[in-house]
């Protein structure tokens, strides 16, 4: 929208550089923090890049604390949760994949009918979903903790999966519904003349056409459930059932854990979703705008 005179061009380049710097600042910090030793970080508190780099932080996490490497040689205590990295990673994966599958399944069944069949109650349900998206997790967690405690579902992955599915389902519906709305209904009508029921027309005709929306919704659901902290934090206190964010949160305020180790485990935890975002950027952009605007 600007005329690109050389001065304007230079200023726009500068503005871009500032934005890029701001975006990359924490990413550079987590990288540099994770490949240093505690000693290097503490020795010179003013140096940007210390003289020595090490991969020992990753080694100690990935070998469950068995191979301590040079920088942890003298360390006698390591938090158990650090040693639980693989279990937490597996738990996070199980939860995120289950929540993604369940929200896609229930969400597409629901979003399709809400977009196609207009009754007073379907419109009401759609609006209920919009309002439900706003419900803060904290107000759900107190009663859910008490309920799960009384039915013995504390410290289980299924409890977390159920809670997260319910919590994310409204958002999934809001992302999917506008897309189903854009698929012309003539296609299903033709299929039904050929003998399909409503349900088979949905499965055979509409769902294949909706793959981009399912991809967009699926990747967003995976990312949000991979990131979710409060639900597993409150429901799962035992190390065997912790997800990665819970393990990381447990290190906050632990005097035995220094920034280098924290940055290393953070980097391992954020890598999967960074890869997803890099690969599926287009779908995420579409899903985010669909879920906010057209709901």
């Amino acid at each position, binding site marked *: 929208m600007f005329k690109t005179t050389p001065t304007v061009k230079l200023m*726009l380049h500068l503005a871009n550089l500032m934005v890029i710097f701001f975006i990359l600042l924490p990413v550079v910090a987590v990288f540099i923090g994770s490949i240093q030793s505690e000693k290097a970080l503490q020795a010179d508190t003013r140096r940007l890049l210390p003289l020595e780099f090490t991969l020992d932080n990753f080694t100690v996490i990935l070998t469950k604390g068995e191979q301590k490497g040079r920088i942890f040689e003298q360390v006698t205590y390591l938090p158990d949760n650090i040693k639980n990295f693989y279990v937490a990673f597996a738990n996070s994966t199980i939860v995120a994949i289950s929540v993604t599958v369940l929200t896609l399944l229930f969400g597409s069944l629901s979003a399709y009918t809400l977009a196609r*069949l207009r009754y007073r109650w379907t419109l009401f349900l759609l*609006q209920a979903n919009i309002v439900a998206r706003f419900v803060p997790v904290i*107000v759900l967690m*107190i009663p859910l903790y008490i309920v799960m405690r009384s039915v013995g579902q504390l410290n289980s992955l299924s409890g977390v999966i159920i809670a997260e599915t319910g919590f994310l389902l409204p958002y999934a519906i809001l992302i999917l519904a506008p897309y189903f709305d854009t698929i012309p209904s003539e296609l299903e009508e033709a299929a039904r003349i050929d003998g399909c029921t409503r349900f088979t027309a949905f499965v055979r005709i509409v769902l294949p056409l909706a793959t981009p929306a399912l991809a967009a919704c699926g990747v967003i659901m995976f990312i949000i459930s991979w990131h979710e902290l409060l639900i597993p934090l409150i429901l799962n206190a035992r190390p065997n059932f912790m997800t990665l964010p819970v393990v990381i949160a447990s290190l906050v305020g632990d005097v035995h854990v220094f920034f280098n180790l924290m940055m290393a485990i953070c980097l391992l935890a954020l890598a999967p979703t960074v890869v997803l975002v890099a690969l599926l*950027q287009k779908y995420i952009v579409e899903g985010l705008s669909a879920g906010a605007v057209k709901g």
Partner: protein
Amino acid sequence: MNRARTPWFRREMSAGRFALVMNLPTLLCLGLVLAYPVGYAAYLSVHRVGLGQLRRGEFAFTGWENYGRVLEDPLFWVAIKNTLIFTVITVGSEIVLAVAIALLINQAGIWTSRITRFLILLPYAIPPICNGLIWSFLYSFQFGFLNRILFTAGLIDDPVNWAGNPDTALYAVTVPYIWRTLPFAIILVHAALQGIPRELYEQAAIDGANAWHRFRQITWPMLQQIIAIILILRTAFAFAVFEEILAITQGGPGDATWVAAWYSYKITFAPPNNFGMGSASAFILTLMIAAIALVYLRLIYRRVTL
């Protein structure tokens, strides 16, 4: 087809029943995990619920006592005040930055804009708790990365205690939150920008309008709707900020960064575990957010046909 011999799953349902069956899982989920807990939270908020009561399974009805105790707690009002300041700063900065950056990445012929556009979604990939910890490393008084950068650049002589100073801590925690949630706002504004017909700008250029006039007359009016949507969504979510507070300050120093969600969390899950009061305070937060949600509903239903 012979109806009697067709198995049930091949039989044609009426549209109404079909809609109901298709929505059963959703209704079940919404009822079980959203409606019921919200209702139960309301129930807990008017009963005395502590660890002892939980063990016995008997909650004594106390009426408005929990609400009264929450509203008389000075810490609660500090938390509300901090939440409001936090929300105003984060949402305000996000909208200004989102419009500016969306315009920047929409600009043709600037190659650095392409890099920005590619990187813009990166913060969306970072788990909030990791984001918080990374920034607590950045902010660290003695070992922090931010101070190292400023030392190296020669901008400061003594280390700055970004998150440990009660006067600056609340502002310090807004930056990571803005960093993490900005991509969402930029993407929405950018999508809206791309929906503005180019002819409008061409016509305005022929009429001799300068860049500021074109922004005021064309861009801004076309962005108002999406900005209202961002404003509402981001306000509602910023009200419930939690992870960054947990990772960076844990409410401190003192009570400088106690926010509403942190208050409910600490009252409930830290000793002496007052579930009743926690529910009452969480319920007050929910009512505030529900008011925002209703405004949103009205806004998008004024023009959307779905």
